[in-house]
């Protein structure tokens, strides 16, 4: 099976305090630690496991700047066979549809049976996979937490829906799936693994290579634009307990007792 996995380089929210710049144009990007979007790691692991079981290849693709190359390389160190970086100034400011347009052009250059994305990324939109499928006229399933290959025409997928229940579907190939965390245990990538793929040339495809007109992507092509970042005024929020460790624990115990939190 020929599998393509779409990945994204994102600020690691578990490692960083995200702060909005005072002029609201962006978040503070100095000193941010970046990594592969959490969901995408599960998607790449799943693709590798399918390939190892039934054969085929895994290609990892990302839309981004030169720095995004590092996440492609990392996923290749995990075991992906090929990597591609889709990069062009014309892509800057693309909305979800713009990104799907760029990815679609790359997909049409290949011969893929299965395209995977993460269920969501740092902007929380969870949109590119579904858009891509609709553009390709392929079926789509989101928040997938099991995949079973039935034959070369169809697969069985579980979608993790509300309450942790699982919705089982049969879906025709080729298709697009968005992958939920927990579907597998993504393998660890050490320095050694990264070193092994350090010298591999990762091709870069721009708008011209992909035959994309610049009006359909980028800021100009976007129907949806982020105008600013801001910190919402959500009222008071929590009462923050201050003082020495002793004082804080004492105060908290008092509160917990009053609220029935200590039996």
């Amino acid at each position, binding site marked *: 099976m020929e599998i393509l996995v779409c990945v994204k380089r994102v600020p690691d929210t578990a490692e960083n305090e995200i702060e909005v710049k005072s002029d609201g144009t962006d978040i503070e990007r100095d000193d941010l630690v970046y990594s592969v979007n959490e969901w995408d790691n599960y998607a790449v692991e799943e693709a590798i496991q399918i390939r190892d079981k039934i054969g085929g290849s895994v290609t990892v693709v990302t839309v981004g700047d030169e720095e995004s190359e590092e996440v492609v390389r990392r996923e290749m160190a995990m075991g992906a066979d090929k990597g591609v970086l889709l990069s062009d100034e014309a892509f800057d400011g693309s909305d979800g549809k713009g990104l799907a347009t760029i990815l679609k052009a790359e997909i049409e250059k290949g011969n893929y049976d299965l395209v995977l994305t993460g269920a969501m990324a740092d902007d*929380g939109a969870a949109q590119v996979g579904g858009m891509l499928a609709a553009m390709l006229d392929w079926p789509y399933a989101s928040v997938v937490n099991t995949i079973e290959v039935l034959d070369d025409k169809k697969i069985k997928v579980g979608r*993790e829906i509300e309450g942790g229940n699982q919705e089982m579907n049969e879906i025709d190939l080729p298709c697009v799936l968005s992958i939920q965390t927990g579907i597998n245990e993504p393998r660890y990538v050490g320095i050694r693994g990264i070193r092994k793929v350090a010298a591999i040339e990762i091709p870069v495809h721009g708008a011209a290579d992909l035959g994309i007109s610049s009006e359909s992507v980028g800021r100009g092509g976007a*129907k949806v634009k982020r105008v600013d970042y801001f910190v919402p005024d959500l009222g008071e929020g929590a009462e923050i307990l201050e003082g020495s460790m002793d004082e804080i624990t004492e105060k908290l115990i008092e509160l917990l007792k009053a609220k029935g939190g200590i039996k």
Partner: protein
Amino acid sequence: MAQQLFAYIGHKNGIADDPALELITAAKKIYADAAITAIITGSGADLAAVGNELASSYAEVWKVENEACAYPNGEVIRSLLVNILPPDAIILFAHDTFGMDLAPGLSIKLDSAFVSDAVDIKGVDGTTLTVIRQEYSGMASTHVHADISNGAVITCRPGSFQPDESKSANGQIVDKSAAAGDLSAKRRFLEVVEAEAGDVDITKSDVLVSVGRGVEDQENIEIAEELADAIGAVVSCSRPIVDAKWLEKARQVGTSGKTVKPKVYIALGISGSFQHMGGLKGSPFIVAVNKNPKAPIFQLADVGVVQDLLEFVPALTEKIKEG
């Protein structure tokens, strides 16, 4: 003339999902005086019951009745909506696993703007709709402008819009089944497999000590267990803890886990994502321990402690044991 507003309403066992009344409020934030049309799909007595329920709140209820819609398969319902919606329609969905499944692709098929996971709507100026969303797990908010000249598909975060309880619509039910078109799809629904019950029922406990990714290591789960033992609580957790297989799925709080209604909820190293907090009902007293003072959970908690939980929690447990 303003564009026509629609809200797709999911339902189970003949009862509309909670966002049914929230989407009215969201739609009124787009056009204050617009008549809003609910769309429901399904079959049999359940569908009829939901139609009657919604008619008191929506000016019109469009229903598509067909065995093929007995289970809401996003692929089937997407193509049906393309067939029944007028051009330049604005349609709202709940941002749940059904909305996430169907809405992005629908916007492509309708060639309209897509805005995902709206937490507030600021209204329309010309053909520009302003929506508020969040990024980075709620750590930054953004204003988004959407060009709605050719319509829009918008998913709204459950719980973010006040339900409109006015029930003053006395709406018409309109049968659109004949317009639905071909309901076959390349994705076929098979069955729903219910989540496993697990060893503990966290929904039965009045006090939960809940651990998140901030616990850093499997062996540190003990820290939460010791606190729980000391206060007579049960240990629950956020999703990454289950993904890592440190605790069983039955202990997960959130939209894809359990819905709990404790009296007291102690969140240790949990950032406060809406998928996690969505599982927390009945306004418990929330205590958050998090080393990041900007963690979104501090907006939602009653009491916060800005500390490393690995140091703070053992100290707290010690003190409680001392009595």
